């Protein structure tokens, strides 16, 4: 349970970072005309991804044990 949630958060965070990175960078885009990100607020997604990954450590330590609930 604890490990599962933490691992999910790390994976989700890394996924968010990848989406955010490629959403913000028009690598491979066929036009140089516009330098806007492909996905709205993609840089925020990237930052969110970084935050989610490191928040996983807090979750891992702070998640209450199952017995106590």
């Amino acid at each position, binding site marked *: 349970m604890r490990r599962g949630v933490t691992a999910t958060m790390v994976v989700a965070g890394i996924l968010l970072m990848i989406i955010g990175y490629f959403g913000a960078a028009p690598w491979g885009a066929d*036009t*140089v*005309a*516009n*330098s*806007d*990100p492909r996905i709205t607020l993609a840089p925020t997604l990237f930052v969110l991804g970084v935050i989610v990954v490191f928040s996983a450590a807090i979750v891992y330590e702070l998640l209450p044990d199952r017995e106590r609930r």
Partner: protein
Amino acid sequence: MAKYGMVVDLERCQGCRACMEACKVENNTTESMFWMYVFRFEEGTYPDTKMSFLPRPCQHCDNAPCVKVCPVGARYKREDGIVLTDPDRCIGCRYCSLACPYGVNYFNYQKPQDAYYALGIDWEDPDVTSVTGGVVPPYKNPDHDLLYGEEQRRTAGGGHAKGVMEKCTFCVHRVENGMLPACVETCPTNALVFGDVSDPDTPISRYVRAREPWHLLEETGTEPSVMYVGGKPPTLALTEIERPKARV
């Protein structure tokens, strides 16, 4: 799609700086800004000296370092080759100005209203109004407030707002309406040629075919849209005759 370019014929340029003046009038730039700048060089020691001139607009590079480094995409390149600044997007980090090897970027260090020419003049004075017809500067070219290009950004005239970067726009507001940039239009010796380089029948394409154009600072790999013919690339041995005296 048109691909705009400019040819500067150094054999024709006589260093009159009318282009600088025209740019200032057209784009209402403040005192210290020279979107178009003409170097006046002196070479050698007296009496064996030689003068030469070098107009330096923004080079509108195809591999523009300023576009690459802009952290928010305020500086961007249009498909027709014009490199523009979106003053509503610019955060004022001035990174573009450092990435540019040509030094064409000008930053609004203060409110443009505080940096215009002739600030001390009493515009209500009858002697003055007889000349100005009652117009009180800063005069603002109304075309600057319109949106341009596919991406519809307010890019003409550089925005003129405190804390953002601006530079030569190839007079995008004129070019989109079928006119030439102000500097080209004004040049009395036709040293500046502007047009579509992708169309082989334009005057600029014929110019490029007939002469051997070179680029400024070719070694930096910026692939400029501005080409030079005649003369030779400047070296650091050249010294400017005078330095622009401008108050920032």
